[in-house]
């Protein structure tokens, strides 16, 4: 096995002085005294007496206060299905911007508090993503529009209907345009069509903020179908991603990540595993999970595809590429050919020619009908870029009568937003259905706010025959109205949308009972999966190749735009949970930035060895390209192409978007360009200069250091199949202590676990680092949002973080993601040092935290080898006894937002330590259900939030005392070779085990291995 050195940041790799300093300090800041110092203060004694007097008086007043009188107000008429204190679950669907995720919504006393995946769906199988988990918070967003408006003033729906109908009638034949993002709902489309049919020359324009137009057009050119096929990563043995981040952001990542995970489950008995090649410019989540990764310039994406086509046997010649990339293409092609029929190539390019070449490759390697299903196309994206540019031209020409905006926000995310805004002024009737006063809605005369999807009825088609439904999980919070209702009203159809949808489906399914069942299940799927279908390729390869070869060469630097896993295209930007979720690769929160390589950073004298990663202040760069300029802080990301600058879209939102997103980062959409056919999400020639200013970026990557102790185990598939025992070679040391060494080397008596002993297993091979677990945990456990400034101080509160480790080549490192949460040690070091016994051990192996006992000494956090304890440095939740201590940067304490809190979990007050509880409220509930039913707890009845959210099933949780449980089997039967505990040598006996990462790559040359080991020694010398 490789003995690699892992590093979270370049500082750690080079073990700089600044890094050593920061790891010495558990809490990365000075004590919060004023800088003058308490001792130098002019009147410290008198101040002290003042405070003493105040606190005594306050305590006296508090003590003599009356106990408050609480009211208990029952229902007048209790709805039959609601029992206060018992959760109800409703099936729904997340279909924002064309993603298809059937979900189940947990509601308590009529309010949604948590979203889980719908396990009945065969497409997503109960998976979710951070974005999906976060939408429950968006429901309670205080920035949502609360009533319809005309010209910015509140109005009634009747008045709005009157005026809109009059305006529509007075258009005099000028076309009406409904402008939306991709819509998956067949019934909504029907409503739209009926509405547009009423007005001559009307059309429906789909504008996707991040467009897949190139792919749609290429598919039309190749197969005569302007559609997105269904992908089956689970059937693929060789996968090549050409800049397609299918694990993080590409099309429907929840579906693809789950499929891909199925090919990554390895044990000593099951040694088959897919091989993933990634060719990309920036470091994406998919690239980070690739077995082999190569970087190229963004402008070379087409050339790489062409070279790959040539390498798999296509009769094309590709332009010259970097030697390393060419070698990678050779390897990838060999693998694709080897696994012909089980191979798949996907591309994130929005260029028609590149996508056509990709289609040609897939055709050659036999993907059609095996890993790509053309018989059941998905329709996840529908926008055609030229439709949008034509619309903007028409608007500016004054030939458009009405624009109704439904979900789209071109005033923010269209590359020439100014032109769109100008054009909108020339439109007689401008109306927006959007849920907030976003950039486009601000410009519209009418605002007819739509319901949040959790308040609305809807349906969605994943692929033909696969439907998912949405039903209201809460009464509308505000005076909003379903957009479909509005359209029906303006069509002159008096049917309510709910009845319309029901009538549609009762007719389709045959009966009311079938419709009821469909709503209950949330999905309707064919009983037998339809056969995968191929298609005959008939694209003009030569033409596409010529255009790619003829493309302009890039300049000195190039810019590539990408979507962040949490924020995506920016539509859900005003979500504090998603803003605070550390990006999987950069570990930065609350901002976008210019990601550059270390090589490029050196030209701005921000190279390794200075205090780059320690200080939150980052140098600002001014990037000029395409006649636009953007100023962003630079962030060094190992593994990005040295001449590439990567910038995330979705930031720089307008001031009315909401408190969390307003004024954060810069809008990168203006850097998009239109090539006459599609939008380009890169620019081939950019100039970069430092502004000389600094800008703080809140990174979490250097928080919580392990100081170079080995915590990751990793090997290659070849080595693992050769000798599976090698991974745990070091654990053999334990053999000499006999079978039971648990009570050895400790002063404390070991804990008996008479009934249940909880344990968790995390597979590093299927953890892709997407962060769904982090947000699921935040929603389940009322984890606080602290804001950028506090994250910068290392005060973030996430109970589960995903540590990202780099290893190997600093210019193209390998990446391992390791979810880190409280390990619930049987020999817990935190328990011994608590002076008040606030943290102690349960008979089920849980390291308990009694918040009300905690006095905040932080001894436990200091003594925790895993650095998973979180102190409430400030009053994030208004839980303090004293008022005005509240620190809330994102409206998380508005009475509306607080409706999202899980009523079974307390909010913690200032000065209290908290950490992962293994979702004890869920465990207690599952145990109680078993007790009430009078049977032993069944395996899988108790699931933690992180486990449930994980689409890749990387987390397994259960009772290790139960010999039939999955967790027991993993530890003792199936994965004994890969199973290890982090920092086992400290003998803290964690309850969480990890499964070693297996990379499907060639064994590393022995020389390099020795070198790195030597290097490591040098650091620790």
């Amino acid at each position, binding site marked *: 096995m490789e003995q690699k050195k892992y590093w979270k940041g370049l500082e750690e790799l080079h073990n700089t002085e600044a890094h050593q300093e920061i790891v010495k300090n558990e809490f990365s800041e000075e004590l919060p005294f004023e800088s003058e110092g308490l001792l130098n203060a002019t009147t410290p004694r008198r101040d002290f007496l003042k405070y003493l007097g105040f606190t005594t008086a306050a305590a006296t007043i508090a003590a003599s206060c009356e106990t408050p009188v609480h009211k208990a107000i029952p229902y007048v*008429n209790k709805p039959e299905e609601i029992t206060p*204190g018992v959760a109800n679950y409703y099936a729904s669907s997340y279909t924002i911007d064309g993603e298809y995720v059937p979900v189940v919504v947990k509601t308590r006393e009529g309010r949604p508090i948590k979203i889980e995946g719908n396990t009945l769906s065969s497409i997503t199988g109960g998976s979710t993503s951070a974005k999906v988990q976060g939408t429950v918070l968006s429901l309670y967003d205080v920035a949502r529009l609360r009533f319809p408006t005309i010209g910015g003033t509140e109005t009634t729906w009747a008045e709005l209907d009157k005026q809109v109908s009059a305006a529509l009638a007075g258009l005099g034949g000028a076309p009406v345009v409904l402008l939306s993002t991709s819509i998956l709902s067949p019934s909504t489309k029907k409503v739209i069509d009926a509405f547009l049919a009423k007005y001559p020359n009307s059309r429906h324009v789909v504008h996707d903020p991040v467009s897949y137009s190139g792919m749609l057009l290429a598919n039309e050119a190749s197969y005569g179908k302007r559609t997105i096929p269904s992908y089956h990563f689970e059937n693929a043995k060789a996968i090549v991603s050409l800049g397609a981040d299918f694990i993080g952001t590409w099309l429907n990542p929840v579906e693809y990540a789950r499929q891909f995970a199925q090919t990554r489950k390895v044990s000593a008995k099951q040694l088959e595993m897919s091989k993933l090649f990634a060719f990309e410019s920036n470091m994406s989540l998919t690239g980070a999970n690739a077995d082999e990764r190569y970087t190229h310039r963004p402008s070379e994406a087409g050339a790489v595809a062409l070279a790959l086509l040539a390498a798999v046997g296509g009769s094309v010649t590709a332009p010259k590429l970097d030697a390393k990339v060419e070698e990678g293409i050779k390897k990838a092609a060999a693998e694709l050919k080897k696994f012909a029929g089980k191979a798949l190539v996907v591309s994130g390019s929005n260029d028609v020619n590149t996508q056509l070449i990709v289609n040609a490759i897939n055709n050659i390697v036999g993907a059609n009908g095996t890993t790509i299903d053309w018989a059941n196309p998905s329709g996840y994206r529908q926008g055609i870029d030229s439709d949008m540019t034509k619309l903007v031209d028409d608007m500016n020409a004054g030939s458009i009568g009405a624009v109704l905006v439904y979900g789209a926000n071109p005033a923010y995310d269209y590359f020439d937003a100014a032109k769109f805004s100008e054009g909108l002024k020339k439109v007689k009737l401008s109306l927006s259905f959007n849920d907030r006063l976003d950039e486009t809605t601000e410009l519209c005369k009418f605002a007819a706010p739509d319901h949040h999807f959790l308040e609305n009825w809807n349906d969605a088609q994943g692929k033909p025959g696969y439907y998912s439904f949405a039903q209201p999980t809460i009464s509308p919070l505000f005076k909003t109205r379903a957009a479909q209702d509005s359209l029906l009203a303006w069509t002159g159809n008096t049917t309510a949308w709910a009845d319309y949808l029901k009538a549609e489906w009762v007719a389709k399914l045959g009966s009311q009972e079938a419709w009821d069942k469909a709503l209950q299940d949330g999905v309707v799927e064919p009983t037998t999966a339809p056969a995968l279908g191929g298609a005959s390729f008939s694209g003009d390869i030569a033409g596409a190749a010529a255009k790619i070869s003829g493309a302009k060469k890039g300049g000195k630097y190039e810019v590539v735009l990408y979507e962040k896993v949490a924020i995506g295209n920016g539509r859900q930007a005003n979500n504090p949970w998603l803003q605070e979720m550390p990006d999987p690769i950069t570990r930065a929160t609350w901002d976008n930035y210019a990601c550059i390589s270390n090589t490029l950073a050196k030209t701005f004298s921000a190279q390794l060895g200075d205090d780059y990663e320690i200080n939150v202040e980052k140098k600002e760069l001014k990037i000029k390209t395409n006649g636009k300029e953007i100023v962003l802080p630079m962030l060094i990301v190992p593994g990005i192409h040295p001449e590439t600058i990567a910038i995330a879209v979705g930031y720089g939102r307008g001031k009315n978007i909401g408190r969390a997103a307003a004024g954060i980062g810069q809008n990168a959409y203006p850097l998009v360009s239109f090539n006459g056919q599609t939008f380009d999400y890169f620019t081939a020639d950019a100039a970069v200069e430092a502004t000389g200013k600094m800008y703080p970026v809140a990174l979490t990557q250097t928080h919580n250091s392990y100081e170079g102790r080995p915590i990751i185990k990793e090997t290659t598939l070849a080595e693992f199949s050769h000798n599976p025992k090698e991974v745990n070679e070091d654990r053999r040391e334990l053999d000499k202590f006999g079978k039971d060494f648990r009570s050895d080397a400790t002063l404390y008596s070991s804990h008996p676990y008479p009934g249940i002993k909880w344990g968790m297993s995390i597979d590093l091979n299927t953890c892709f680092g997407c962060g769904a677990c982090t947000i699921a945990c935040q929603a389940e456990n009322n984890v606080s949002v602290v804001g950028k400034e506090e994250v910068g101080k290392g005060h973030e509160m996430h109970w589960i973080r995903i540590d990202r480790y780099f290893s190997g080549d600093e210019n193209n490192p390998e990446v391992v993601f390791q979810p880190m949460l409280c390990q619930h040690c049987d020999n817990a070091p935190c328990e011994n040092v608590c002076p008040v016994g606030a943290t102690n051990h349960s008979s089920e192996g849980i390291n308990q935290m009694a918040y009300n006992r905690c006095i905040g000494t932080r001894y436990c956090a200091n003594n925790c080898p895993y650095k998973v304890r979180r102190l409430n440095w400030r009053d994030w939740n208004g839980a303090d006894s004293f008022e005005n201590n509240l620190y809330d940067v994102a409206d998380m304490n508005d009475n509306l937002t607080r409706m999202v809190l899980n009523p079974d979990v*307390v909010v913690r007050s200032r000065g209290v330590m908290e950490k992962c509880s293994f979702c004890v409220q869920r465990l207690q509930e599952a145990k109680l259900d078993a007790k009430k039913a009078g049977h032993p707890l069944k395996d899988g009845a108790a699931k933690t939030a992180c486990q449930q959210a994980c689409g890749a099933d990387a987390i397994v949780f259960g009772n290790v005392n139960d010999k039939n449980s999955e967790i027991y089997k993993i530890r003792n039967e199936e994965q004994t070779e890969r199973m290890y505990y982090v920092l086992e040598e400290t003998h803290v006996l964690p309850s969480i085990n990890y499964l070693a990462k297996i990379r499907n790559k060639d064994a590393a040359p022995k020389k390099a291995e020795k070198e790195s080991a030597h290097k490591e020694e040098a650091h620790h010398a």
Partner: protein
Amino acid sequence: MYRRVSILLRKHFVSVLILCASIVIPFSAVKAADPAKGKQIFQQNCASCHNVHKKLTGPALAGVEGRWADKKLLHQWIHNSASVLASGDKYANDLFNEYNKTAMTAFPSLTNEDIDDILAFIKVEEAKPVGGTPKEGPATAGAKEQGSDNSLLFGIITLILAVVALILMQINSNLNKLAGDKEGHPTPEPIPFYKNKAYIALGILVLFMVGGYFTIQGAIGLGRQKDYMPEQPIFYSHKVHAGINQINCLYCHAGAEKSKHAMIPSENICMNCHKAIKEYSGPELFTAEGKKVDGTAEIAKLYDYVGWDAEKGKYTKPGRPIEWTKIHNLPDHVYFNHSQHVVAGKQQCQTCHGAITEMDEVHQFADLSMGWCINCHRTTKVQFADNNYYSIFEKLHQDIKDKKIDSVTVEMVGGTECQKCHY
């Protein structure tokens, strides 16, 4: 207005003042009849109908011993009033007629000693001023709360003895001085005891310890409200519903079996019966203050809330919710689940809520403190053999088989661990 909020805290803090002043040392009175015990029995069994000073459902009990010719007869009356009436006792029959021929509930389970305890308690109560409330009579309330009603007496005796001792010491020192003078070696002028540093220090220490003890006790009691009996928007009598009419608790509090909340019933549950039951015809109802309650008028209040027109026999107005005052308030950081206790633990409602079927107005029976919870978890046995959930506890099953233990308490299966209730 009459404040019925009896919060221990205030009593404790007041008693700190009194008791510190008199330096009362806690006594445990050993006596044949124990008024403290009597108080407990009184509250559990008698208080729903009787008050010491006031006429409620039954007569005021002050001077009850004097009214009965024979103590034995009184015992018999309490055990079974019908038998005394049947014997033709004049006082008993007059009493029966005076109270609209409402028979006193029989208490065959009370022993004669129990009754004597109650009588002792009544005697102690008699001595106190009438209408003593926490606000008006803090002194008595404070003394009473200490549960040792002789404390004051003993305190005074202690004080007198202390004064006598001081005087004797003074005399002793004076005599010593005289003796010394006589023998020719004059002693220096003694420091008076109130200036003596040792005495002062001792005094402060004692004050500090006693004050500290009661301050801590008071602090612990903060927020606890045992015996809390607020006035409710409708005079709803549990005694009438659950006691006299034998309605199952779970009929209205349906959540107790399913949920963490027992649930205050929604108004539609009330209307299930009260659509038909329009008038109250049961025994006379009285508030805790002794004010008579018109049951029919209270039912009319319900109709008003729910919007029911009793004459037309239909709903004529939209309903309004009834804002009950919550009596049992647990702190926010405690997770309590009714269904756990009722279904899994098979506990009776009365274990925590007291003799609810005897209460016209509900008061908080238990103090709902953590110590109270824990004590119960330590002593209560789980359904170890009957509930198959516990089959996984192999070692405990073995221990039972081996006769090492005879039963399994909640504590033994993790019932006193922090995260049983706090998360």
